[in-house]
């Protein structure tokens, strides 16, 4: 039985390379740094696959005031966490898209539209998308991202959705794909591989 898609945000701004979704409050497990999400694009002809690389919670005037209050009540804290006006921002790197032909590991033809729903990828979808590691170069080539930590988190998560017996082989293969990308920088590769180790 397929899992029910979990809505995690709505798109607030986007480009073909990345999109940002806003949500009220993150669930305990999703979204997390390094997990996959998807948002429809091209009027439903495709879905952009995103890799969450940043989760940002901005402050507001009320939060700043409560923060310096002498003894705020639990009710005040909870109210400001849940009912705050400034949303939590989830930044996603576009690492591929799906269409009728399956997954493509390239930048999408079009980004999602504003306020499109952003869903977390189910475990089955993660497993299917990560059958190929062709998205890894897109992560390495994205400027200004903590690419190594992001990949380590994403690949570990992708291993966890697989049966126990396949997890090590998956991580080894993933590590080799990373090694190909970082062949000229052994120190960086060494750190990444250590982070991947089961």
């Amino acid at each position, binding site marked *: 039985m397929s899992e029910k898609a979990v809505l995690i945000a709505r798109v607030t701004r986007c480009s073909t390379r990345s999109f940002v979704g806003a949500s009220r409050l993150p669930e305990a497990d999703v979204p997390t740094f390094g997990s996959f999400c998807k948002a429809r694009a091209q009027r439903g002809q495709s879905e952009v696959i995103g890799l969450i690389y940043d989760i940002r919670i901005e402050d507001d005037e009320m939060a700043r005031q409560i923060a310096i209050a002498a003894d705020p009540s639990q009710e005040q804290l909870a109210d400001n966490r849940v009912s705050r006006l400034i949303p939590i921002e989830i930044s996603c790197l576009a690492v591929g898209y799906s269409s009728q032909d399956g997954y493509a590991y390239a930048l999408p033809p079009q980004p999602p539209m504003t306020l499109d729903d952003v869903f977390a990828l189910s475990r089955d979808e993660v497993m299917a998308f990560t059958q190929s590691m062709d998205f890894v170069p897109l992560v390495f080539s994205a400027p200004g991202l903590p690419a190594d930590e992001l990949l380590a988190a994403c690949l570990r998560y992708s291993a966890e959705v697989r049966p126990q017996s396949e997890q090590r082989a998956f991580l080894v293969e993933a*590590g080799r794909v990373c090694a190909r990308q970082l062949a000229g920088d052994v120190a960086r590769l*060494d750190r990444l591989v250590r982070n991947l180790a089961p």
Partner: protein
Amino acid sequence: MSERSELDEHLGPKPSDLPLGVVVGGSLSTGLTVKIHPAFTVEKLAVGRYVVIRGRQTDRTFFGIITDIGLDATDADLARRPPMPDEDFSAEVLSGEIAYGTMHVSPMLMLDEDQDQPRPVKTIPGHFSAVFEASAKDVDRVFGTEDKTHFYVGTPLDMESVQVNLDLARFIERSAGVFGKSGTGKSFITRTVLAGIIRSGLASTLIFDMHNDYGWSVLDESGREYKGLRQLFPGGHVSVITLDEETSRARGSKVDGVLRVGYEQIQPEDVEMLGSFMGLSGVMIDALYYLSYKLGSKWISILLGDENEETTLQDLVDEGRILGATLSAIRRRFEFFRRMGFLVPGKGDDAVDEIFHRLNMGTSVVLEFGTYGNTMAAYVLVANYLTRRIHERYVRQKNLAAGGQGDEPRPLVIVIEEAHKFLDPQIAGHTIFGTIARELRKYSVTLLIVDQRPSGIDDEVMSQIGTRMTCLLDNEADIRAVFSGVSGAGALREVLARLDTQQQALIMGHAVPMPVVVRTRDYDTSLYASIGLAEGEELKKRAKKGSKTLYGD
């Protein structure tokens, strides 16, 4: 073409379908560099194995041999910060990708799609051409099948089902060599090849059997007994002639004759090669020619004092023709002749004609030295004595045949051991063995030299060796010598230096399409049977059939 099954689709390519790696560099002269696929480990490869390279831009297939295996890394820094022994995961990830194996492949043959027979390489496969382990079918295609003139001598490494067949017609066309350290199985390989030649009837062989290894049964290091050529060919294709009848009888060897060489048959040319063994100086050797000229055919008997000709010798000294000290030295050294029982005063037997006749009739002759094999001078003397005379007869008969006055002589292969004693650079230029090696098959006589020190053989002679079967050699000079005159063979040096100590040989040259490392064929009942020797039940069956043919039921 068979379609891929659903299971194949699911499981992916079988290991044998996966390429070992891809060509990443190299040249025709230095060989190809191949990056090994991460799925393969260098630990399962071995130099000497065959590979097949499928050209990327053409349908051409290249056959090559792995000549070296190495380790490399994309970043030199990896050597400074390798994964520690307990970091299995890191080691597994890095192995095959940034730390990878390489192999060096010497391309040997190429085959176009529309051709049946491979031919020597004249180009190389392009970048990133896939390299596969050669299948049994691939290797079979190169070495053909066994027939009357192609003799099975061994199997390629790790390919027990594939036969490497020696082209015997080409083998006897030029002189050949079997080289290897002591105890590596040279005699077994030589005996196997000789059995093939004798079975094929392509040539007669004259074997100077120093250690009694070829004629009758022989024991290996573990004491196991193997049949000699005389036993393998009981129908008269092989004769054993001994110099030491007593020893041959004691060994239970069936001999067909005893060789006696008369003093009067020996010429200074026969003794000249013994210079280093008998301590004969250049002056003494010159004196021998003079003594032979002055004293006639009995010159050795006179020198030994067997004839009452002391005054004649004294006259030569008195006339200043020869120094007294030189004469005395020669006489002391010639005492050696008395210790050689096969040397007899007088004219001796007509052994040369007898042996030549046998050889020309298609009978191979094994000359057993018995205990005289331990005396190098005896071996060199007899080999030189017989070879010179038999070669003379071959030259004469060949010339008669050329003039339409006789038949072509039957091709002859002369087998000599410790060949460097005959083909030393100092003497090879003017000995009969050097002549035979250089003149190729002009007079239908070639050499099969068996030696453990090929570096001691004259370079010019080595360069004329057509087929080389080489067991393990570890002396650098010997390895270099084995490859002299072989173009592009430098890469095979690593292969040669890493052969097993027994039953492995690198065969290259005229009689094989490409160099091949073989596990040599077992010299056992299967070989006996393949050359037609019947034993046990088969022998009884044949005897019964013969009896029935002769006498009826």
